[in-house]
């Protein structure tokens, strides 16, 4: 069951990260604000569809914390794409999330 869930989970996390980057870019590139927000909303609808797929494969109590791993990719993407500074607390948080995901998926 867990192996089947890898694809929809990876897609959920990627699409959610892309959605948040779109909102982040909307704040930076003010002249293209509307386009980025429209992209963000479209990605959100795609995310909903993918999330329902994931929910057919995993118990809610497993899917929800695993989807929280998107915080990790959002923080990393903010660093790379939005050029945000990642401080030490954030790095510790990223590592903590990795440990949590490892614990859940190690079942």
């Amino acid at each position, binding site marked *: 069951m867990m192996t089947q869930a890898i694809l929809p989970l990876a897609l959920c996390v990627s699409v959610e990260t892309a959605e948040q980057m779109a909102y*982040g870019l909307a704040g930076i590139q003010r002249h293209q604000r509307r386009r980025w927000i429209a992209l963000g909303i479209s990605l959100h609808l795609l995310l909903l569809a993918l999330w329902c797929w994931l929910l057919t494969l995993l118990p*809610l109590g497993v899917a929800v914390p695993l989807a929280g791993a998107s*915080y990790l990719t959002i923080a990393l993407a903010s660093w790379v794409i939005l050029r945000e500074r990642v401080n030490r607390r954030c790095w510790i948080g990223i590592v*903590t999330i990795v440990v949590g995901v490892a614990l859940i998926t190690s079942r």
Partner: protein
Amino acid sequence: MNPMLYDQRRLPIRLFILLWILDVAVFMSEKAAVAGSTFDVPAVFYIRLLHQPWWWVGLAMGPLQLWVWTAILRRVALSVAYPVSSANYLLTMAAARLVFGEQLGWSVWLGAVFITAGIVLVGSSATMHRTGSATSLAG
């Protein structure tokens, strides 16, 4: 908005409780909507989903969730709002255990505690740039 304008001593706890309830309710509705369905034929799956009352219940709560989240962000900084709102993960797991009878092993609970702690650290480091889409999965 200038974060200095916020009164950080006053956490809008009632709004947070409302947000947690909404977050949990949306997750539960979504799970209820897909119950008994398989993803074998995606088109069939999505058409069926649109016929599930629970799907619409979850969807209808979306704007309300966004309104509460926006109300919270008018009162506290994002770096405060994220860590507090992330309690919804563990609350959803508890609700799934009570309502759906999901048996989650100790490694799942421990993993979720780590993920929540990680979100608190990442969220409070003020690196996050999210513009308050409470309807997203991370709540």
